[in-house]
């Protein structure tokens, strides 16, 4: 389908369209999946779907170094994974951010982007789902949420309670059959740490030939520096 002149819908998905897309078979590129969805009538507004907090978290870890360098080696050492069963709570200290995820697993249609907004009642407790709320077409997985407690008081988070609202927006896009799907963030069911490359690799791609880095290592008996592998 490459008919450029065809009028495509635009704007935010209404409840009726959300329901229509959810009824399509999963093999249909236009299908939308949000699962598990408890009490469908209550979970949906005129233009959004309520999402709940999942039971897994990544908490920031105190690093042995005085800095955090987002590179290939350290990216996975920044967090501690924690499971908080439903019925239990997680304490988020004042002014701290944790990574959580939605309880719902989501598959977006090929022609829709999504945005997650903090539920207003949650936002009024000074808990904010921060900074990377945009979801690309065809994304599937539980959504990783950066949950910040911006208050001066520790706040309890209960997995299973509403945390955000999903808004879907049309993307004017032609169907590309048999297109391969990006596998970088494909299908997570828990919050995921970002997969970084080393900074010099990223910068080389835009022509930067010299990059300042901090590498851990030891100075050997001959006085030469050996980088830690």
């Amino acid at each position, binding site marked *: 389908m490459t008919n450029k002149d065809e009028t495509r819908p635009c704007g935010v998905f209404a409840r009726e369209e959300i329901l229509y897309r959810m009824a399509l*078979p*999963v*093999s249909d590129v236009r299908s939308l*999946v949000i*699962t*598990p*969805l*408890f*009490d*469908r009538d209550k979970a949906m507004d005129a233009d959004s779907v309520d999402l709940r907090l999942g039971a897994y978290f990544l908490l920031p870890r105190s690093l042995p170094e005085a800095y955090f360098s987002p590179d290939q080696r350290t990216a996975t050492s920044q967090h501690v994974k924690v499971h908080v069963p*439903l019925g239990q709570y997680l304490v988020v200290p004042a002014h701290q951010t944790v990574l959580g995820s939605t309880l719902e*697993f989501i*598959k977006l249609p090929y022609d829709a982007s999504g945005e997650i907004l903090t539920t207003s009642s949650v936002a009024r407790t000074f808990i904010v789902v921060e900074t990377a709320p945009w979801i690309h077409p065809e994304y*599937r997985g*539980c959504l990783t949420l950066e949950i910040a407690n911006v208050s001066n008081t520790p706040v309890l988070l209960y997995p299973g309670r509403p945390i955000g609202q999903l808004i879907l927006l049309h993307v004017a896009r032609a169907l590309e059959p048999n297109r*391969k*799907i*990006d*596998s970088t963030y*494909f*299908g*997570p*069911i*828990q919050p995921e740490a970002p997969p970084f490359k080393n900074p010099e690799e990223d910068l080389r791609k835009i022509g930067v030939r010299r990059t300042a880095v901090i590498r851990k290592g030891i100075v050997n008996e001959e006085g030469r520096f050996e980088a830690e592998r």
Partner: protein
Amino acid sequence: MVFVEVPYSQGPSFFANLMIYHELGHYVFEKLGDTDDRRPAFTSLVAAMDRAFGENLSDTIKTPGNRAWAKRVLEAWTTEVFCDLFAVRNLGPAFSFALIDFLSLINLMGEDIEGKFDEEHPAPALRLREQQRCLQKSGWWASVEGLPSGHVSLMKRLAGKAEPEYFFEFQEKVIPAFTGAFLTILPLIHELAADVTPHSEGAAADFAQQAGKIDECLLHGVVPSSLLAEDNASSPTPVSMINAAYCFHLTNLPKLMDRLDGQRADDLRQRMKWAEKLEAWTVKGVEDSQLLAASAKSRTHDKSTL
């Protein structure tokens, strides 16, 4: 408390941990023997063990110490097969597939040793033959026998293995009377396993009905709980999800990888990553299923108390 040992490399693997059902079987078997009010099927099995010993071994094993040892061996084999069948009745072919993976990992599935009994366990070949028979009786086998998988081919081959190829060696001497005696007990073990797992009737039919839909979800990288209905009426059971996912793991993982940018099924590291994802989606599906069931129950309760 039940202690279950799984090789350290398999600890995080959901599919490998399906073998815990076998270990639960040990607990159930022990409890069946503990009670004063024993089930008739258990009493018949105990009688069959005595008869098998009397008719096949009592003439050759004479001393009290050796007799006690021989009975312990027969009982250990009986328990192991019961636990396998208990697991298969509860879990379907996914248990057999997990057992094949496990036995292969510890080098017990070679053609030269697959027929070998030891003092604690019957031969892997016989264990899998009995599981295949159980799957056939309970309706599962028809749904999986056509899978283009090495696991299924292996089960078919072992199902046809000639009984004289089973052997039990003790002190480097083969004792055929032992395996002969044990073979007479097998039908009673099947009866007892079926007797204690009446709840599993219908699991194979649900799988036959839902496997295609679950497969479709997994092929599109979607947790199969999307098939769950709020009222649970037409939802796949966790057992169907687990079995469909294991079948997908054995046959369709390359198809999933082929849909993804830069992924190749012949790259072991990438294949492992997607096998782990598949397990994660299955676990999530099972968890969601429990949550939705609890939620539906709670809503029904709320309505009835109004």
